[in-house]
């Protein structure tokens, strides 16, 4: 099990489209992905769950990956945060 914490700093937070980008990446891996925003958590492969986290710009998200390909999953997802979810 691996985890990392990153700040959401794309323009309007983890809205539907950004959540979609996250799911696109998460779904490529067999590992389970769970995302925490404070005390809320969501399945990282569910766009509705992620959008429902209400993660506004500036929110700190903790991402936990667990499974056979967790290392590459962690790298890919962290990269997505750095790329601001392909928005800008």
């Amino acid at each position, binding site marked *: 099990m691996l985890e990392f914490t990153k700040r959401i700093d794309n323009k309007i937070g983890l809205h539907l489209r950004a*959540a*979609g980008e996250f799911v696109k990446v998460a779904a490529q891996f067999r590992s389970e992905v769970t995302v925490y925003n404070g005390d809320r958590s969501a399945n990282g492969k569910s766009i509705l769950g992620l959008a429902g986290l209400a993660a506004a710009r500036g929110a700190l998200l903790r991402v936990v990956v667990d499974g056979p390909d967790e290392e590459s999953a962690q790298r890919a997802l962290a990269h997505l945060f750095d790329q601001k979810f392909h928005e800008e």
Partner: protein
Amino acid sequence: MSGNGLEKVGGAGSAGTAGERREIVKRGISASPGIAIGVAFLRDPEHLVVPRTRVPESAVESEIELFQQTLAETRNEIVNVRTLMTDRMGDDHGRIFDAHLMILDDTTISEGVFRLIREKRYNAAAAFNAVVEDIIRSFQEIEDEYLKDRYVDIKDIKRRLMRNLLGREKVGVEKPDGPAVIVAHDLSPSDTAQLDRDATLAYVTDLGGRTSHTAILARSQGLPAVVGLESLSGMVENGDTVIVDGNTGTVVVNPREKTLQDYRLEAARYRELEEQLLTLAGYPAITLDDKEFMLAANIDMPGEAASVLEHGGQGVGLFRTEYFFISHEYLPSEEEQYQTYRSVVEALRNKPVVFRTLDIGGDKIASYLHSSPELNPFMGWRGIRFCLTRKDIFKTQLRALYRASAHGQVKIMFPMISQIEEVTKTKEICAEVRAELRRARFKFDENVELGIMIETPSAVAVADHLAREVGFFSIGTNDLIQYTMAVDRGNSKIAHLYQNLHPSIIRFLKQTVDAARKRDIHVSVCGEMCGDPFSILILIGLQIDEFSCSPNMIPEVKRIIRSVTFDECRALVRRVMRMRTTADIEREVEGFLRAHVQRGGAAEGASE
């Protein structure tokens, strides 16, 4: 948001039980005058009436199958729309549909639906409705405004999938059987554009204010409307009797016999008054000291042209072309536009018609044009900004307008001007269009007058420069007030800051008129301010050349003009120009109105 999905489910098919239900009286905002009594038709695309049945055990698996098939069907539909949008508008516009597809694929939905079907024996439609309403509710609890807004995407998917589901179950009424009072939580311009004017008696909505688009549309159609009723749509069922009093902003649902009688009398009285005002139609809009003003109408659709003349309008001061675009599922062709504009011009029989070019954006959105949501649409890609980047759409419209000029008096007006470069660029495009039409040997008027809307503070500030570039100004007071006071007119918490008579607004009006006077160009006011008796006096005193308002307000504006003197209104303006607060100005104008207008009146004015 009214009620939850399941309550509505219970209401299905119970129309016609009106007699047993108790009378409900609600006050809202009076958006368009008149009184209508009729049956309610709930127009609520977000709250489809979803049938709820109990699925027998033997049918559970086939119900699940039905849902899975519908999911697949809806999925294909969205894939097709995405391809279409990507081809037409680029990859970026197609991308939002990726998110829609992922929502459909999200197991939160399918698992929730399967569970309700298996464990509670819900039918597929009711199960899906319950699951999605739950999700929408959880989104609405989000405090961040931007994130919260995204539940509209989920509603969009709900609508699409539900339509496919209900289509199979052969349920869901789309249009009223006969004339009805349209009741809705909110009506978007595209909703209202699809409603049949002849089947509509009045509009009643939970949301909106006096200057929302439902209100403006109702006034231009001459139909009563009450808006801002908060939660009324949740209390009404299809077929309920509803009284809509647009004069006082009152709505009565399931009225008692006595209430009904009172309103029938009131409606008759009002009709009589209206007819009296209509007799003014043939008289000029002239003050007691012989200063004449031009009265024109704001309309949205060709069908309203007749009512302009009927109410004594001397032309169309504002034809909003965007409703024509919004009511289409696709971009209307040059030929379609030409036929529409031509029919308006011909109906006006050589009286001037000012066409405002496409003012898409803000709260008016055609789904095929403007798919990516903006953070701040009123400050965004709208009006001339949209047209100058979508030159293809703009030129098609200009060609159609120029061609229509062969059949009557066409003027063209450009919205949302905030800098002079926009005007020079637009004039170049108009010249290109004329050259193309000349080459193609179309008949058109080479001298179609070009004008601009003055609706941004920056346009007011440089009005002297702008006046050298164009043939006329039209002051759009709704947006000018919104931008000047920095107030969202739809937000009830700050709506009180939206003030017609704020000192800044009166100064801006004066500055604009002065700039126009210096270059000797025509200046009109086409905002809703024209329908407000207080403001009319100020506009007269400022020597605005033309008033353009909803057709059914023309007689009342005329009555006011005919009962005052220009001199006294000018003196009134001089007095209020020195005042510091809206309250002081309103008090002064109110006193004036009482002293001059009430003693005047229609009959006296008309006898000259």
